[in-house]
């Protein structure tokens, strides 16, 4: 049997995918081998942050041990090597998102900063008093608060597309909110609290029908399935590196070149200029215009390594495995008497949010932690979602392709233990 399959990528590159085998994949993640409270770690908080494959850790280490120099500056060997590695990473991100050009890939700190960049440099320019911005009821706070700040500043109005009891994005309600006053639509691709995959393709179509630009928060989408920004045709797409098996402190904003070129810079400083005199400064072309100061070089390079790693497995194989695991987990956790699952959308990715009758999510998390099981508890930075379902908090298990059915079984056993403690 072959250990890998050969594929021809859309851009003509030969891509080798290894055969998906979760046991060998787990070997790539050193942290998964550790124990917590004397039990093997069962890491189910991947929507908060993912663990890192050795390849990413080694790449960051090697950068500091062998290539560290500031980029875009020095006319010497090391600086050229570092610059090359950083710009190679940008091209990897471009290919990963299927963006037309690497000029449309801006390195940021996080998806939060990507959204704030669009708010400052684009929203501020297009929004006037009485205008409207549309978001959904299942946004992370990072795709709510920037728009609230902007609307308050401009005297504009924030409109919210409601969700139903399953956590589905309601396209009919969205259609009703679209109007000549709508200047921007900003929606999540996958809900971090409910796992819902939103119908972004239709959302973009409906908005574009009225010439309204769309920003998509892809933080919870890119780790789970292939994203093609040209196929989506969205104006902006953002994600965070650390949820994609890369380092923290690095994020991505994709934007259509003609919009980015028309936007003012985000921050002033080094690296974002072509020339500076005290009379006039000429800004650098995109993407440098939006990348003032020495960037998070090892973060960018590490993210590039994470994308290489994922490409070696293939997002299709990752998605197929995760969907099977998610279905198994939804069924197993949902079958426990007293458990209520939040988020039962037809299309979901990676998230099982739940409550247990008579037990607060914090107590669930503490007891599971004693079993070595890491889950998230609280409002998941999505307080409006908690309000929608009438609960102060939820417990959330979120999956990665290195999780196993045995770990789901451990979660189920852990929840039974919670019930035992609370008798």
């Amino acid at each position, binding site marked *: 049997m072959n250990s890998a399959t050969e594929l021809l990528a859309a851009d003509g590159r030969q891509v080798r995918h290894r055969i998906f085998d979760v046991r060998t994949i787990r070997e790539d993640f050193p942290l998964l081998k550790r124990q917590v*409270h004397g039990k093997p770690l069962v890491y189910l908080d991947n929507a908060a942050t993912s663990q890192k494959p050795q390849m990413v850790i080694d790449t960051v280490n090697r950068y500091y041990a062998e290539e560290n120099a500031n980029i875009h500056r020095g006319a010497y060997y090391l600086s050229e090597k570092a610059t090359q590695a950083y710009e190679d990473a940008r091209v990897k991100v471009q290919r990963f998102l299927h963006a037309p050009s690497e000029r449309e890939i801006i390195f940021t700190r996080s998806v939060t900063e990507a959204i704030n960049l669009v708010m400052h440099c684009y929203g501020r320019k297009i929004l006037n008093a009485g205008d409207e911005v549309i978001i959904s009821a299942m946004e992370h706070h990072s795709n709510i608060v920037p728009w609230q700040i902007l609307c308050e500043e401009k005297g504009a109005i924030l409109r919210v597309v409601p969700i139903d009891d399953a956590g589905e994005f309601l396209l009919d309600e969205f259609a009703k909110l679209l109007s000549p006053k709508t200047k921007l639509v900003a929606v999540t691709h996958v809900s971090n609290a409910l796992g819902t995959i939103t119908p972004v393709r239709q959302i973009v179509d409906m908005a574009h029908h009225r010439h309204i630009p769309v920003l998509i928060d892809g933080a919870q989408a890119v780790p789970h399935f292939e994203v093609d920004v040209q196929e989506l045709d969205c104006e902006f797409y953002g994600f965070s590196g650390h949820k994609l098996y890369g380092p923290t402190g690095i994020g991505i904003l994709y934007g259509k070149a003609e919009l980015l070129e028309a936007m003012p810079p985000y921050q002033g400083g080094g690296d974002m200029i072509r020339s500076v005199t005290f009379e006039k400064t000429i800004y650098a072309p995109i993407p440098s215009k939006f990348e003032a100061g020495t960037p998070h070089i090892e973060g960018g390079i590490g993210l590039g390594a994470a994308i290489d790693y994922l490409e070696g497995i293939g997002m299709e194989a990752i998605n197929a495995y995760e969907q099977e695991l998610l279905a198994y987990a939804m069924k197993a956790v949902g079958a426990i008497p007293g458990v209520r699952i939040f988020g039962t959308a037809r299309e979901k990715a990676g998230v099982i949010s739940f409550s247990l009758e*008579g*037990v*607060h*999510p*914090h*107590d669930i998390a*503490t*007891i599971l932690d*004693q079993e070595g099981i890491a889950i998230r*508890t*609280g*409002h998941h930075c999505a*307080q409006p979602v*908690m309000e929608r379902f009438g609960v*102060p*908090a939820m417990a959330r298990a979120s999956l990665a392709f290195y999780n196993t059915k045995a770990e789901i079984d451990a979660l189920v056993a852990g929840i039974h233990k919670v019930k035992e*403690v*609370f*008798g």
Partner: protein
Amino acid sequence: MSDLRELYQELIIDHSKRPRNFKVLEAANRKLEGYNPLCGDKITVFLELEHERVKNVSFQGSGCAISTASASVMTESVKGKTLAEAEALFDIFHQMVTGKPPDAENAPELGKLAVFAGVSEFPARVKCATLAWHTLRAALQGKGDTVSTE
């Protein structure tokens, strides 16, 4: 299971399921809300003070087992105490759940409050155990705003 039983003692489970003095106190002359933004726990403490003494105390709100049980046992512990005695109880309780030795020479008896000693082994849960107490102390001191653990 042993560590867990240290935290989730029978008395704590009992008070979390059947909290005492869990009601609005009509005769209250002080009322204060406490909030833990990290987990969304909310509590309202009602105080009826008479001649520098806690004549009656109650609470309402939603929270985890630790915070609900802590509020419940707290109301039982401070009822009838003077302001100074209640303050002293706050101090020794806080020292216990944060794992510090008592610093007062004449520290009051913990009584039932001692069941929360296990909390010190769970740093992430200290704020759950102290939310009600911080709210009570602010109410005793006559502070008007919502108390936050952050």
